[in-house]
């Protein structure tokens, strides 16, 4: 097997490279076609508007939506904020002045503990401002089911937000089931589909989604651009805008459109629609090989999350008795991420792994490897060998592995916490 070019990028869940076809499509819009689509009275504006319209159609086609339902944003974080905060303020049960801050009573929101911070933090802010928020715990497989949501529903529930696929472990939630339930109860349903769209077939009609967030840079588009799908029929979803100004994007998101970015997103959406099936099939085979090799060649190793209801290109593996940051140092030719506290700004281990019952110790010992369109067989073979060697080397250094081999139950040791 050929040695792949190093370093190897296995962090596609963090971001993806721009497809060259995307860059090519964007370039004219920096220079000769630089107009503002809001300029309605000259050729420069018309050229830009035409490009934005085409991008809107392409994104809509990727989602099974109407192009009028696509709002361009700066990315999923903004889309999530516009959707969650905008829907809560629009559909609240009692206005702010009737409910003192923090007292609840403005309406009930359902979400869960393994959402991205870009969903959790807007929900927490709403909670402080008088909304009641239920944070559902997934099971040990990491999945949020319609039954869990049903059990949390209340007469005053106004909004439910559940991610389509999780960014750390790749598990896929029952979005169609939750969508049908929300429809039946008249609850607005938002899904953060950042990791899902462009990788897996998406149909907002079949899934009963009212609001959906996506980012271009997770699907081989540029950074700094994304979209929010806002349903226009059955029901017509209204949102209180967070940014006021020129009234662009049906008033949901004022501000001059990022034309170059939007063109890039449109092109990325078109390519994704074409390639996702073949990419997905190929990456699933590579990921399966990676998982089966490392788990069979190393003891005390586990794949986190549901065994098969997961994105095909992502895996999260805990290597017992080895700390994640040092493992990444030992595999410095491989760019990936870890649930270890030492790799996070907060110095806390992954809250997602904690929520699904992976102990702190195994959370510190986890690697997230996410494959992408450019990942090759040779890269995966190299990665397998590298990880196996690195884990063995670090276990030679690990007092915990010694104790484990001696038969000492690590959970019975009285550790000195510091």
């Amino acid at each position, binding site marked *: 097997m050929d040695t792949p070019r190093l370093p190897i990028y296995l962090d596609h869940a963090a971001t993806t490279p721009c497809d060259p076809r995307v860059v090519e499509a964007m370039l004219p819009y920096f220079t000769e076609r630089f107009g503002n689509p809001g300029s309605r009275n000259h050729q420069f504006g018309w050229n830009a508007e035409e490009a934005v319209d085409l991008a809107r159609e392409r994104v809509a086609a990727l989602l099974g939506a109407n192009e009028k339902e696509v709002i361009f944003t700066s990315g999923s974080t903004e889309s999530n904020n516009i959707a969650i905060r905008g829907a809560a303020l629009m559909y609240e049960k009692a206005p702010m002045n009737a409910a003192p801050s923090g007292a609840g009573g403005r309406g009930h929101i359902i979400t869960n503990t393994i959402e991205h911070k870009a969903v959790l933090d807007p929900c927490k802010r709403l909670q402080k401002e008088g909304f009641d928020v239920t944070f559902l715990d997934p099971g040990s497989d990491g999945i949020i089911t319609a039954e869990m949501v049903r059990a949390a529903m209340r007469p005053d529930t106004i909004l439910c937000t559940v991610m389509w696929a999780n960014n750390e472990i790749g598990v896929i939630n029952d979005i169609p089931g939750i969508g049908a339930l929300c429809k039946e109860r008249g609850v607005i349903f938002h899904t953060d589909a950042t990791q899902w769209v462009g990788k897996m077939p998406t149909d907002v009609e079949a899934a009963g989604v009212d609001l959906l967030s996506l980012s271009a840079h997770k699907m081989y588009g540029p950074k700094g651009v994304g979209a929010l799908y806002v349903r226009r029929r059955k029901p017509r979803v209204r949102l209180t805008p967070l940014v006021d100004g020129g009234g662009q994007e049906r008033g949901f998101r004022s501000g001059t459109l990022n034309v170059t970015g939007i063109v890039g997103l449109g092109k990325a959406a078109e390519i994704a629609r074409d390639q996702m099936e073949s990419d997905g099939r190929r990456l699933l085979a590579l990921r399966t090989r990676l998982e089966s090799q490392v788990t069979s060649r190393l003891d005390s190793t586990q794949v986190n999350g549901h065994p098969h209801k997961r994105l095909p290109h992502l895996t999260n593996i805990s290597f017992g*008795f*080895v*700390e*994640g*940051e*040092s493992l990444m*140092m030992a595999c410095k030719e491989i760019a990936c991420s870890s649930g*270890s*506290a*030492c*790799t996070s700004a907060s*110095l806390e*281990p992954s809250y997602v792994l904690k929520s699904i019952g992976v*102990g*702190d*110790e195994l959370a*510190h010992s986890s690697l997230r490897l996410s494959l992408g369109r450019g990942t090759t067989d040779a890269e995966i073979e190299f990665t397998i060998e590298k990880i196996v060697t690195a884990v063995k080397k670090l276990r*030679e*250094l*690990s*007092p*915990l*592995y*010694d*104790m484990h081999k*001696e*038969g*000492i*139950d*690590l959970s*019975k*040791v*009285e*550790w*000195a*916490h*510091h």
Partner: protein
Amino acid sequence: MAYGPKIIDHYENPRNVGSFGTQSEIKTRKDVGVGLVGAPECGDVMQLQIKVNDSTGVIEDARFKCFGCGSAIASSSLATEWLKGKSLDDAERIKNTQIVEELSLPPVKIHCSVLAEDAIHAAINDYRAKNGLSPAAPGSAAASIAPSR
């Protein structure tokens, strides 16, 4: 995290890795002091062992094992280098700030040096306790292995 060259060197070529026996063997060896500090849930556990010449009171050899990040591994590796040849009293005066300085540890990794200092004290205290010497510092931060397996 981008580390300095000394951390990388200790991480890639750790000094004095190992132990002077299994956990149960070590318990009965009076010439060996063990410091086991940290916790798996916190993401770092250091085990430091010192072998002491009982007539001179000098540390003749030292070994470490570490579950932790690159800085934790480097800090404990460096500690073993510094311990060898020192008297117990001198070894006790090693400060975490010296480790920080030597390795150029970034601020978020200072706790790794604190853990190494704790491990040094715990190993010295363990040796002293085994040999009926009075511990210099009260309140060892070491973990204890429960008798039930």
